[in-house]
Structure formats: structure tokens, C-alpha cells
């Protein structure tokens, strides 16, 4: 048993790298990713598991990093938005969000992008209803969602195009 407020050394597999961190058991995954791993793209919005701004991928599936202790993530593959494209070479999903005006203040954006990315990895050609259902755990206060839906539809088209060219 790790005692209260005692730190435990753990290894988190984040974005393809092993990160050695020393954490208190009570530390949330979101806070550890931000503070210990420096991944500021993990946004903490509501802290109660509603808004989805803190969404990261755990073994490829979207989860809320504010509803998980960092110690629980040991042995899983974590992906944050930092693993996708760079500002000069956006990933197709990010590029589609940009082109389709799918972001405004940007606070929900990393969570949206990751949830959309996981959806497209599983279902490359989702319809609007599926997109809305799959992204329904992510709140946005700025966009009214329409351009985010458009962005995911555009991303699907872009990925299909890329796949065709790659083939």
C-alpha cells in the first residue's frame, strides 16, 4: 500500500515515449500530464467529467483525464493532442478543423480533435448523426457545433483522399 501523500514512481507511456514521473496517488492524470509531462494541450475545463476538454486517448479510445488518477494509467498507451501534427504540419483532422472554422476560443479543441481522431480511426466514414453522438461528451460554448461537424466530415474526406493517393 502506498501511504497517503507518499509519492510513487510510475512510468507513463505517453505519445510513444516512456515518462518516468513521481506522483501522489491522488493526482489526476490531467494534472500529471500538464504539470509533470508538460503537455499543456490537456485542458481542464469542468473537472467533473462533463465537458470533455481534458479528453486524451487511452489505448486509442477517448477518456477523460480529469476522471482518472495518474496511477491508473500505468500499463496503458496514452495519446495527447501533442502527438498529432505540428503547427507547420497539421494532422489531417487538425487541418480540417482549421479549414472548416471548427474552432474559436480553442479551449475545447484538443479534446474535440482527439475524440474525432479516435472516431475516424474506427469508422473512416461516419455520418453526421454518428459524429454528433460520438462527440457528445465534448462541450463547446463558442461554435454551436456546426463547423465542428463539418470539420469531421471534411477530415474523413481528406483521410480518404490521402489513403487513395497513398495506395
Amino acid at each position, binding site marked *: 500500500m502506498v501511504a497517503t501523500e507518499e509519492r510513487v514512481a510510475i512510468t507513463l507511456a505517453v505519445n510513444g515515449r516512456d515518462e518516468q514521473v513521481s506522483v501522489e496517488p491522488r493526482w489526476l492524470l490531467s494534472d500529471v500530464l500538464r504539470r509533470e509531462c508538460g*503537455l499543456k494541450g490537456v485542458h481542464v475545463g469542468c473537472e467533473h467529467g462533463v465537458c470533455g476538454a481534458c479528453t486524451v486517448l487511452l489505448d486509442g479510445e477517448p477518456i477523460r483525464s480529469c476522471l482518472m488518477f495518474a496511477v491508473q494509467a500505468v500499463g496503458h498507451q496514452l495519446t495527447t493532442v501533442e502527438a498529432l501534427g505540428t503547427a507547420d504540419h497539421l494532422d489531417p483532422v487538425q487541418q480540417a478543423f482549421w479549414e472548416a472554422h471548427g474552432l474559436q476560443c480553442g479551449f475545447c479543441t484538443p479534446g474535440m480533435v482527439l475524440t474525432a481522431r479516435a472516431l475516424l480511426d474506427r469508422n473512416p466514414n461516419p455520418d453526421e448523426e454518428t459524429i454528433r453522438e460520438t462527440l457528445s461528451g465534448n462541450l463547446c460554448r463558442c461554435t*454551436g457545433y456546426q463547423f465542428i461537424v463539418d470539420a469531421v466530415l471534411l477530415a474523413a474526406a481528406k483521410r480518404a483522399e490521402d489513403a487513395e493517393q497513398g495506395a
Partner: protein
Amino acid sequence: MASANPSDRSEAAFTYIGKSRHREDGPAKLVGAGGYVADLDPAGSWYAHLVLSPHPHARIRGVDTRAAAAVAGVKAVYLGDALPEADLLAESEVFYAGEPVAVVVADDPAVAEDAAELVEVDYDVLPAVVDAEAAMRPDAPLVRQLEDTAGRADAGAHGDAAGGSAKTEERPNNVSAVVKYRRGDAEAARAEADVSVTRRYHLPPLYQGFLETHGSSAHAERTGETTIWTTTQGQFMVRNAVKRLLKLPDYRVRVVGATVGGGFGGKGVLLEPLVATLSQRLGRPVAMLLDRQQDILVNNPGPAADIEVTLSARSDGTLVAIEARLVFDNGAERGGSAGIACLMLAGTYRCPNLDVLGYDVMTHKVPIGAYRAPGAPQGYFALESAMDELAGTLHMDPLQLRLKNAVQEGDDRPDGRTWPRIGLLECLRAAAAHPFFEEPLGPNEGIGVAAGGWGGGLEPAAAACQVTSEGRLVVQVGSIDITGTNTTFALIAAEELGLSPDEVHVQFADTAHAPYAGMAGGSKTTYTVGLAVAEAAKAVRKQVLEIAAERLEAAVEDLDMADGAVHVKGVPGRSVTLAEIARDTARFGGRTAPLIAEGRSAVTKSAPGFAVHAARVAVDPDTGEVRVTGYLAVQDVGRALNPKEVEGQILGGVAQGIGRALYEDLAYDSTGQPVSTSFLDYQMPTFHDVPRVDIVLVEVPAEQGPYGAKGVGEPPAIPGAAAVANAVAAATGRRVATLPITPERVLAAQ
């Protein structure tokens, strides 16, 4: 190109204006490098955490801070009387549940939070005045002494936007302001009218719902220089508040506006004076980030309102009297929303007889602030619901009733001014012509329409433009970019200089380095700063042309700029690129003065923006559940400089209107306890709740705005609640006059 009034130009004359461009801050935000205040962690920072009152009204008998102070890592615990300049902590009495009473500073945020739990406050609980109507009664106890309160700076900033300046008259208890608009004899006109409708409407307080909570950090250096990093819509506003409270000269306070994760009026001045004070006292950088629950409790939300409206008309639909009584519940500070609400309620339609009376009332609740078009959604929910009911009574098409009465240029406003050129009629006509109304309705579906308008804010602004040695243009501004304004500025500068927007970089600078710009609020950033950018770009253009004239041995009048070069008109091949000219401005031995200029604006005429919305809803007759199945948003935007971003503003406004209509309620119980203190309780629209929206941009150019543009942020958040309520009435024959329109209220309505 050098037209004095750019709004005269036809669309075809523009190269970049009016063509959608994606946001320049997109890539940074998309890769998780947005630069929000929580992402900035000043080296060596300590962390502050608030202790909040659980009581809506109580006297503080004593505070025991010993246990908290004894926690390892705690650096200080302060009570309100020790930090008066922070303007946030209660001193001897608390006036709302959630009012900060103490602050704990520690070297680790978790330690500060843990220790804050250990601060023991001994309260003498006092009776709370919770209901605004009750607060106005002669026997009601005073919420607090009026002279102890200050109008919140941000609400005031919005309040000025509409230019409401009504007379203040006799004040009932706990009333901080009375607004009165009288014209003719409304009572007599009602007696003679063919029809009248009367109803009382209620709107709850609303939380702005930004996904990023408030956060600020400060570093007061021993030299006396204080730097503040914060999430605010107005960095100069923060600077002015801090220098005033901390009694510092303005140049010693540097405010760095971080990227804002949503503001909607709610990010003005809140924590900055406190962190600055703490840093000054402790000699260390101090940071504070509110958690969501504290943010909901401490942030200044939009006010609740009770509005009774009576509309009287002739049988042909001509309005003859508007009577209304508005009560705004502003919580434990003065607030000030009734002015805008009264002005728009009384001023949107031509009407010879007015009797409109508004009260700003204080209660023991969190002081209200600004939420997107403060006062307007409340006033228009009542007015536009009543107009719909009047249309029903008259058996008239609701759009025709509005067309018949809508104000236009030259009509009197109730405040003694006259309306400038506005687009209300144009919006109504565009709506009436839209196929939205022809699509067949399903069972239990109905359509409702509503109009709304916003006065539009004004504030002096400046900007600077400089050509880099590579021939790119840097635009420097001090306005906070929330809505994509920097991208619009790039389009404006590009247009003026004939330069691709890819070659224009808008640089945001802090208050020590940027030209002045007002808060991003009141729908005025593009309208005012945009004009300053255009002026600066024009001045740089002039500098460029003068140099080019020498180089090309041509008169300035014979030159033109396009594609990053200066050309001699009609002589193909005789040109010099901007890069060629610029190279000489920044090299050893160069002979060309740097290409740099400032632009200034002090717009004198506001440009009111109107919107007309139509909602289609389906109502489940057995459960009362309302689903919005279609939506039309028509808005006069003056000129859409970056149309997709304008549409983005409209879509977001529509969603917030739907939230106001159907879901949102920052509820209090009867004892004054807030009950929606997390996103588990405060319901905002999700992907499931907002339909696709048909958008029509109407362009009635503003006289003074850049290229005729008007502010577009606020109008789309105004008509939604009434449009949805009217659609519910159309679908069910039942009118819900209390927001939000919950399923239960639909079933209970008559």
C-alpha cells in the same frame, strides 16, 4: 483604393475583404499550444486559493487561520480587512454565498487548496434577501449600503454601449437604479386600442459557460513594476483597475492578456487586483486558478429578470402603446442591465405611447456582470414573446406584424436620439423571403420568429503597422482576440496594401507595448480597432508609394499596389516589390526610413446591429420535451469582412440562445444557496441540442465601420429564447413565459 469611406466600395472592388480566411491562431490552438493563462507558470510562483462563504448573508465574527497557516508549504493566510485593495474579499460581512472571505498562499497549489479547507470562519448568520420583488418592498431589510458598492467595470462597459441614459427617479428599497421611458399616454392609448396582450415573463440568471475558468498570476518586482498575466477580454481595463486599486502609476502595471478560453462578457476584472496585491506583499510571483465550482460561485453571471409587458394595437396591427415593468436581480452590487433592456424593449418598434419602467435591484446573491449582450436577451424575450402573442390575437403573420412596426433610420429612440441607418427591416424582409418557412412541418412541429438588436459599443483605439525587412507586414494591436479579430485585421491590412494576407502577421502585445484598445466586448473590436488598423495600413501604404515614386520615377498618383509590389499603372513591368523597398530600411548603411505608421480611431457613431431568428421545434405532446429541428438566423452585419468567422459568431450565438431557451438556469434555492454549481447541474447545449442553422448575412453598411462592418458578436445571442418560445407556442398552443422551457413547464403551460 484610397477611398475615404471604404463602405462606398462595391464588393467586386475587394481583393481580400469578404473572402473567408481561417483563423491565424488556429494551428497553435490545434496542437495544444494555445497559450492560456493556466499554461503560463511564472518561475518560482506561489499559488493562492480562496475560502468562500457558505452563507448568503452573515457577519464574520472571527476567523481562525492557525491550522491552515501551520500546514507545511503555506506561506500566508489573509483575511479581507488585510487586503482591501484586492477588491474581492469580504471584510466584516458577507453578502452572497460564495463570497471570498480569505485567501491561502502556498508553494504548491494542492497545499493551498488543502489548507484553505482548514480555515475556520465563525459566522453570525443574518437573514438573506433572496427575491428581487421582495427586496423592493418598503419593509425589506437593506441588502447593503449602496455607497459600499461599486458598479462592476465590465457590466458598465457594456452598459455604455447602448447609450442608455434614462432619468433616475424615486427608488424603492434596494434599488440601485430606476430607468423610465415615457412618451404620450400609454394608459389612454390602451383603453382605446382594439387589442391588448399582457403577460409576465421570467428569466433566470445565467452562467457564461466559458470552458476555461478564471485565472491570473502576478509578479510585483522590487522595482515597483508589476506584471499580470490573465485571462481577460480587456487587458487595458485590467491595468486601469489594478493601478487604481493599488495606487500605482499606470506605466508600472503591465498586463499581458493570455489567450482567452471563452469570455462572453464574463472575463473582465476579477482576480487580478488580488494576485497583484499578494505578489506585492509576498515578494514572489503568485498565481491563482479558480476551480469550476469556485468559478461558478465567484464569477459575475448574467442577471435574472422579471418583465411584465402589455402591448396594445389597432386591428390592422399598428402598435399604439408599449407598457412594461422590468425588474433585474443584480445580486449584491449595483449592476446595471435594466437600461439596455428598457431601451431596446421600448425602441425596436414605432410606438407613440410608451410607459416603460425598469429597476436594478440588489439581493444577497453573487453580483451580476455581463453575459453576451447584457440586458438585451431579457428585454427581447419579453417583447418578442408578446409580439408573437399579439400577432396571434390579431390573426396576423408574425413577420408582417413586425414589418409593419419596425423602426428605421430617422425614427425616434426612447432616449431622445434617433436611429441611424439600421437593418431591422432588411432582416425581416430577408427572413420573410426565405424558404425556411415553406418546408413542410412534421406532427407537433411549429415555427417561431423573433427579432433582436444591439446598440453596438464604441471606444477609442489605436494600432500600428510596420513593414519587415523581408517585405512582410506586421500589425500590432492590444485588443484581445477571441472571435478571430486578428485574422480580420490581417485581411484589412492586406486589402489596404495589396499584399497577400499570408504576408501579414498580426502581433498581439501587452499593455506596456501595444497601442490602446478597449475590451473585446460590446461588439466593437472590429468596428473600432479594425478602423485603426486600416488607418495605419493606409499610412504605411503612403510611405511605400512615396519611396516607390522616387525609385520608379513616377508620380504617386500613377502608382498602384498589388501582389506585394508597387506598379506604375498601365506600364507592365515597371514595378518594385515591397521586399525590395523594405530591404533598405533595415540594413547597415541603408538610406530608407523604416516603414512604420500608427492608426487611430475614435468612432463617434455606434452601429446598431439587428438579427431576426426563426426556430422550428418539435414538441413531444406526452412528455413536453422540445427539440429544435431547424433554425434560420438572419443578421445585418454591415459588411462581412471574414464571412465564415461571422457565421461562426452567429452559430455560437444561436447555440447560446437555445441554451437560454431550453436548458440553462443558474438556480438558487429559496434560502439564497446556489444549486447549479457544477456542469453536472448547469445544462449547456450539446452536439445533440443544436441543429444545423441556415444563415443569411444582410449587409446594410455602417457609416463609420471599416468597409461598412458592424459588430457581430452580440446580436445573434439575443432573439433565440423568444424564437424558441414562440415556436413552442405555435406547436402546442401553449405559451411558456418562464425560462428555461423545461419539459415540465411545457406540459404545465396554458
